[in-house]
């Protein structure tokens, strides 16, 4: 499954009310490291089992970025039961992303 484009409108339904944990990638077009990480997050999304993956473009969704105190990107947050369960800042390899999710699952 592809990563879901998250917005202020669908965040509640897709993430906070989700019955499975959600890995959310906060990113922006102008951030080089974000663009390195994005394809890896997409790979994780393709193989996701028992969780789903979404991404927030902080340029368009500055309310979400502010709400979750994002001040460094790329930032990955795992939400479980509507709450933040894990967070990681910067480029990390695929196995570390999976580790981050499995901590929460």
């Amino acid at each position, binding site marked *: 499954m592809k990563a879901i484009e998250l917005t202020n409108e669908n965040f509640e339904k897709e993430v906070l009310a989700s019955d499975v944990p959600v890995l959310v990638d906060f990113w*922006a077009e*102008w*951030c*080089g*490291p*974000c*663009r*390195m*990480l994005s394809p*890896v997050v997409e790979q994780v999304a393709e193989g996701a089992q028992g969780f789903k993956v979404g991404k927030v473009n*902080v340029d368009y969704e500055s309310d979400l*970025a502010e709400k979750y*105190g*994002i*001040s*460094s*990107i*790329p*930032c990955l947050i795992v939400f479980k039961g509507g709450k933040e369960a894990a*967070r990681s*800042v*910067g*480029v*990390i*390899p*695929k*196995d570390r992303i999976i580790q981050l999710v499995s901590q929460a699952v």
Partner: protein
Amino acid sequence: MKDIIIIGAGPAGLTAAIYALRSGKSVLLIEAKSYGGQIINAAKIDNYPGLPNISGFEFAQKLYEQATSFGAEIVYETAVSVEDNGKTKLVRTKSGEHEAKAVILATGARNKPMGLSREDKLLGKGVSYCATCDGMFFRKKEVAVFGGGRIAVEDALFLSDYCSKVYVIHSQMRFGAAPSDVEKLKARENVEFVLESNVTALLGEEKLTGIEVTNKKDGSKRKINISGLFVAIGQMPDNGAFANMVELDEKGYIAAGESCLTKTNGIYAAGDCRTKEVRQLTTAAADGAVAALAACSRI
């Protein structure tokens, strides 16, 4: 078995791959994080000949595509050791092992941390190592840059376009950056220089609210309220895993001359991980070519 294993897929490693592949050798790149190396953090590159105004991301992408178009293979694993078995070398990673006739170490360097308490905790909560990534979150806010080299000065210039105030905290009086950039920075009205001083404490519980700065000369301390601290105090290498195969200098860089040869036959060092005076994209690329051709002529 591959002809050449290259550890690190930054500019040096990818250039080495291009040269080796064009010489008809097979290549495996082993990369711990993502290809491109530190350059992916650069918003704009203005000093690589022939490619003015390219972004770091675009540069890395083009270089990667060039290397893979010639047949470079890449695995994302962390190398933990290299073993010399004479004609062959064995590279162990956290998840496996790979064998080749020659190894090029192109492990680069990473940002040097400040070594302050709670630095890790506040990373991403006001402490950042990438102004071009995170500067936008501090629009109209007060921030500080810690450092006085090229990257620190470029970061401060970039931030002063967006932030209400930028403190530049530097342990020396003089800057190690292009004089034209330093002059530009001095002319900015929203920039305050705090020289001969170090950041000695991070303030704030859940997120950064300020820093303590200590003057090196008289020991006086000053508190500065800021919401963002951009750290650019230099780089450090990460070559400890290979210390048994190559000689490291006192800072941990691999001792190898312009020929990129290390003390072990068939093991080469290229790019920022090597002892050298100038660490630039161009010198990384040059090392990649030199190391690859040396490796090719040996196997």
